């Protein structure tokens, strides 16, 4: 029973840390499927987290915070879009730039506006997301096996958590079952054909980039409005890159994205859990190895050793209309 309890706790924290990864990786899915590489997921998430924390602290409303997060993230996406779609600049360079600007700006603005060492003030009750409890969760908790699964694993998360997992089938549906999705994927594989069909490549890519911004906004809002009560500088701590890794690991497919995020979230939860504890057979595993595991796995995958990850064909290439 003890093992079961540990497992439930572990899976619960897996879900908790996976949520921003799911949002961010799905965000990356939209742009990359449309042929725009985006390594600024990290920066967008951080900017959104800051905007959410700051706006919620001032307005004391969680919804204002969420709106601010989405707004800032979409604006940053549009900067990336302008550089890489309209100006046909290097998408990687643009992404790196956004990550830098946000990393600096969140600290400078946070310090100037709140004077708490780059943090936003701790958020009051109405300014952060509350846990959603399913009906009867407390009553059923003591039922063996089913009780903890229902009460701890399924119930008791934030609204955004459920939204994140709902976004997985929704994204799949948008990308694979709508006309917009078909065109979006086409623009990432063969923009010339889309252009010939009389559809604007530019406008499609901009819409993909905006979708990315909205989802990154949710990811950031989750960090500062749900996971913790307020923004702390650098709080994304590489999650954007893990999301990118998950996206590649999932071979740019929505359902796989969810599983990859859960896997990386699980590794993260396990690393915290195992800190200093020896494992049977293997002995003590350095925490650092556990932390590096998602990155190592991604490299191994990219090398084609566990199946080949083939990115959208037109990814990273700005579209130039035939002259």
């Amino acid at each position, binding site marked *: 029973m003890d093992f079961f309890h540990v497992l439930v706790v572990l899976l619960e924290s897996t879900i908790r840390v996976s949520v921003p990864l799911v949002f961010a990786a799905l965000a990356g899915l939209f742009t990359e499927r449309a042929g725009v*590489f985006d*390594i600024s997921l990290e920066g967008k998430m951080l900017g959104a987290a800051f905007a959410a924390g700051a706006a919620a602290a001032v307005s004391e409303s969680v919804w204002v915070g969420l709106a601010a997060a989405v707004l800032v993230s979409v604006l940053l996406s549009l*900067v990336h879009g302008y*550089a*890489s779609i309209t*100006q*046909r*600049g*290097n*998408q*990687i*360079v*643009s992404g*790196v*730039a*956004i*990550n*830098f*600007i*946000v*990393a*600096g*700006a969140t*600290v*400078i*603005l946070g*310090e*100037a506006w709140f004077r708490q060492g780059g943090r936003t003030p701790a958020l009051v009750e109405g300014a952060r997301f509350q846990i959603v409890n399913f009906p009867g969760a407390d009553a059923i908790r003591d039922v063996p096996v089913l009780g903890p699964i229902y009460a701890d694993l399924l119930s008791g998360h934030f609204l955004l958590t459920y939204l994140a997992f709902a976004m997985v089938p929704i994204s799949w549906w948008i990308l694979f079952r709508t006309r917009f999705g078909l065109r979006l994927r086409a623009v990432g594989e063969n923009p010339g054909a889309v252009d010939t069909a009389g559809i604007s490549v530019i406008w499609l890519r901009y819409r993909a980039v905006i979708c990315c911004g909205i989802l990154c906004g949710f990811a950031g809002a989750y960090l500062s409005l749900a996971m913790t009560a307020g923004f702390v500088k650098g709080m994304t701590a*590489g999650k954007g*890159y893990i999301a*990118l*890794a998950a996206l*590649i690991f999932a071979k740019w497919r929505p359902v796989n994205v969810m599983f990859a995020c859960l896997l990386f979230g699980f590794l993260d939860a396990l690393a915290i859990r195992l800190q200093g504890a020896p494992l049977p057979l293997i002995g003590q595993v*350095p925490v*650092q*190895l556990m*932390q*590096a595991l998602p*990155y*190592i796995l*991604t*490299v191994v995958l*990219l*090398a*084609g050793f566990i199946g080949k990850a083939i*990115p959208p064909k037109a990814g990273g290439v700005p579209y*130039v209309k035939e002259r």
Partner: protein
Amino acid sequence: MSVPYAKLPGWVEYGLVPLVNLAVAFLVAGLVVLLVGENPLEAAYHLINGAFGRGEYIGFTLYYATTFIFTGLAVAVAFHAGLFNIGGEGQAYVGGIGVALACLWLDKLMPWYVVFPLAMVGSALFGALWAFLPGWLQARRGSHIVITTIMFNFIASSLMVYLLTRVLKPLGSMAPQTRTFAEGGQLPKLDWLLSIFGLNVGTAPFNISFLLALAAAFAVWLLIWRTRLGYEMRTMGHSPSAARYAGIRESRIIVITMMISGGLAGMMALNPIMGEQFRMQLDFVQGAGFVGIAVALMGRSHPAGIIPAAILFGVLYQGGAEIAFEMPSISRDMIVIIQGLVILFAGALENMFRPAIARAFAMRGQRAAALVETKGA
């Protein structure tokens, strides 16, 4: 990177366009200063004064510049072959192992001029090794170099935390760092170089690795523009298909280029480890690998551009510290914003102002031509 616009005179291409981009980056940075409620002109004054006001400040500026020359060259070499090495951070970090090993082994037995070359080789070797795998994976398995080098940055940082907390840390010490090196592991300062100009270097850690950085810049120029390998690299960067038709072995060039790039990034570790801290600490790279991207973009991947660009970033780092000191509401993170803006305007948006500039020149050219015509008639 290809330039789909009309050819401009050299001084416009390499002087005016980067300057315009830089000016816009600074203007936007000035807006951020305004947003914080401070005076941008005052900030600019502290920036310049903090970077050049005294011999000591200049020493610090050049100390930072040394680091950025290495990482800037690293990024530039890869750029020439069409590779975007975003892993300078990790390569420099791992390069530190080479420096630390040489110093820990010999610092008590040999003088610095014996340890230095060994540390140099060590740092370049470890940095090159860390770049070898991404290069090899790109060449042989087609994995995207940008993604693998990002992943390798994170792996390097985990590896170094492990090494510094468990392996290289002296017994009984709590701090995650190696022991302090004896005299043999400490580079002499370049105080004599500044005293030629009547400046006193003071406590600034401006050291002999600056000269190595200049030598490396010259070597990179030789390599890229005066050797067959460099020619092949540039061909590949310009047009991979042309390179393939010309019989250039693509995968070989990718691996070699990445190793040279990684080696240069690794040599960056000499400056902070042997030149300033005299021990290897956690996180000694402090983002210099990423600064290298901005430096290479600003310097148009040419050593003659990279050195001034590196000095510019040295100014930003040293002057930025001074701003943070004099104007408490602006922290050093201002540099990070400026850096990002430089990367954005000099890199991703490099063509934003080019059409306008090109048009201005085309008009001037036409007028001159018309003038010649009327005179001829």
